[in-house]
């Protein structure tokens, strides 16, 4: 196998070849680094590339494996981190000017767990500044670009994670998700993104946006790969106050390709309103296919869906302001215009709004438990109501301009599940032509963008979400498509 081909392997396939000593971690890491070198000029997915450290770690992994010390599925696998995960001794900028020179003094808990499993960290990935936005448009480090059309956004905030995984720069990445920041770029870039249950994965050493709503999760090209990465990072961390002491099942064991008997709910309200026609058609077609495969499809009422986004805002904005208050007071001009605006807006919420929103969270969780998850095992929705919009620098140069509308549209179907804390996964379920650019029309070459299906499960039941997603993936070939930027490079 050529080095270039090994860079396109799924994580699971690369792991099998490494285990069987058909592929060396050195070859695989070299292939990833070559891909990064070839594509970064077009994608801008990385903020920091640790080529030397990655090659040293790869050589060490190869040596350990040669001596019979194979540690498991992640041993020798390159896995990049959004630049808000601490990696000891490595710059952690949060894609901000404020933290441009910040060096992490110790590993985040998830970094440590990945390294203990033998994963190799080739670099730190671009994001929306401080993870506070859904477009990924960044005034400080440039905007990560969508591999399916580099004139379009990846979605955010885990923008670099989406671009890097979709393009094959690395087989997997970690992202964070406060209102959709894993699932939105997964949807817009055509990869798998999983936001686990709140408390499933430690956040210690991850720069917060909103303590009550932040989640950490994997972004990969296949569902099996997401299960593998989740396995490595899930589990109780006593030093993280939000981490839960819940048993962690063997996620890959649930991937049996079978959805027979699963009850999948299709929301009667909210989640199919104001959706692009092609997006709705693709998602409904995906649900029909799951039905043909043996799942029972039911329409369900989804309580509080219209109220949740406002309540989530009343929690997220004050928490974000509380975290940023000191820096915002001392260095306000170092913030991008859009992020500064959102932080300042946090000052307009009163304590009573925050407390009532947290009370609503209790009520909404109870309602979903009683009224939704007593009827169905999963809920299926579009991840985003639109495919990737064009990059508009005005998104961040004006505080309340078009970017705000784009953001509002992108987060509408994802942020309810941050509020509820349930696991939610996005995977590709179709493609649709982007509106043509003038140069494309002349060349008669219309580009297509991916559509995301979101599957939502009960609290702590990531296994069922992964099971259904994997079965759908096996029955389709959306995940096998390669973005044009890869073919063109």
């Amino acid at each position, binding site marked *: 196998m050529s080095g270039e081909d090994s860079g396109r392997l799924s994580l699971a396939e690369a792991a099998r070849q490494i285990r069987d000593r058909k592929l060396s971690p050195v070859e695989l890491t070299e292939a990833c680094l070559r891909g990064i070198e070839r594509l970064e000029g077009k994608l801008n997915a990385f903020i920091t590339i640790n080529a030397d450290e990655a090659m040293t770690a790869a050589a060490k992994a190869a040596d350990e494996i040669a001596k019979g010390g194979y540690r498991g599925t992640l041993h020798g696998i390159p896995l990049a981190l959004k630049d808000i995960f601490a990696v000891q001794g490595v710059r952690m900028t949060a894609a901000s000017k404020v933290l441009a020179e910040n060096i992490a003094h110790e590993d985040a808990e998830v970094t440590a767990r990945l390294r203990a499993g033998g994963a190799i960290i080739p670099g730190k990935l671009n994001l929306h500044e401080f993870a506070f936005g859904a477009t990924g448009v960044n005034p400080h480090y440039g905007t990560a670009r969508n591999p399916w059309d580099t004139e379009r956004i990846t979605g955010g905030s885990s923008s670099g994670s989406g671009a890097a995984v979709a393009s094959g720069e690395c087989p997997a990445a970690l992202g964070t998700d406060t209102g959709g920041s894993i699932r939105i770029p997964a949807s817009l870039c055509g990869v798998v993104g999983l936001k686990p249950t709140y408390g499933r994965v430690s956040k210690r050493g991850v720069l917060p946006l909103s*303590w009550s709503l932040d989640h950490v999760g994997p972004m990969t090209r296949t569902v099996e790969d997401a299960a593998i990465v989740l396995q490595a990072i899930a589990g109780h961390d006593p030093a993280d106050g939000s981490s839960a002491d819940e048993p962690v099942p063997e996620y890959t064991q649930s991937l049996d390709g079978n959805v027979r008997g699963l009850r999948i709910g299709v929301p009667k309200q909210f989640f199919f309103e104001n959706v692009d026609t092609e997006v709705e058609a693709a998602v409904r077609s995906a649900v029909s296919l799951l039905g043909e495969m043996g799942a029972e499809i039911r329409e369900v009422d989804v309580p509080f869906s219209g109220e949740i986004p*406002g309540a989530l805002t009343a929690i997220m904005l004050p928490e974000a302001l509380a975290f940023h*208050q000191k820096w*915002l*007071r001392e260095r306000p001009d170092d913030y991008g215009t859009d992020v500064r605006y959102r932080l300042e*807006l946090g*000052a307009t919420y009163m304590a009573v709004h925050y*407390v009532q929103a947290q009370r609503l969270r209790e009520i909404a969780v109870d309602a979903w438990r009683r009224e939704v998850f007593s009827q169905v095992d999963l809920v299926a929705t579009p991840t985003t109501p639109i495919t990737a919009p064009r990059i508009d620098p005005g998104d961040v140069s004006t*505080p*309340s301009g078009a970017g705000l509308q784009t953001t509002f549209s992108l987060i509408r179907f994802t942020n309810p599940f941050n509020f509820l804390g349930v696991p939610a996964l996005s995977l590709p379920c179709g493609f649709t032509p982007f509106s043509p650019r003038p140069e494309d029309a002349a060349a008669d070459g219309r580009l297509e963008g991916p559509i995301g299906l979101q599957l939502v499960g009960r609290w702590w039941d990531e296994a069922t979400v992964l099971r259904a997603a994997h079965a759908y993936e096996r029955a389709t070939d959306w995940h096998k498509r390669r973005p044009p930027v890869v073919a063109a490079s």
Partner: protein
Amino acid sequence: MDPQHDSFLRDLAALAGVTVSPEREAALVSGLEGTRRIAEALSVRDYGEAEPTGRFRAPKAEAR
């Protein structure tokens, strides 16, 4: 812009430790409409006996 409105907004932001420059006031005033809608929706609901989700955890008991 309503000067009284702006003054209120500046005072409110100052209470949260945020200094809003004059050129940024207009944008924040427009955002205030969204806050008002959300605040109203949160204010009219009957929450019954629901308590807020909380994170406080008492430290483990220490041996004496």
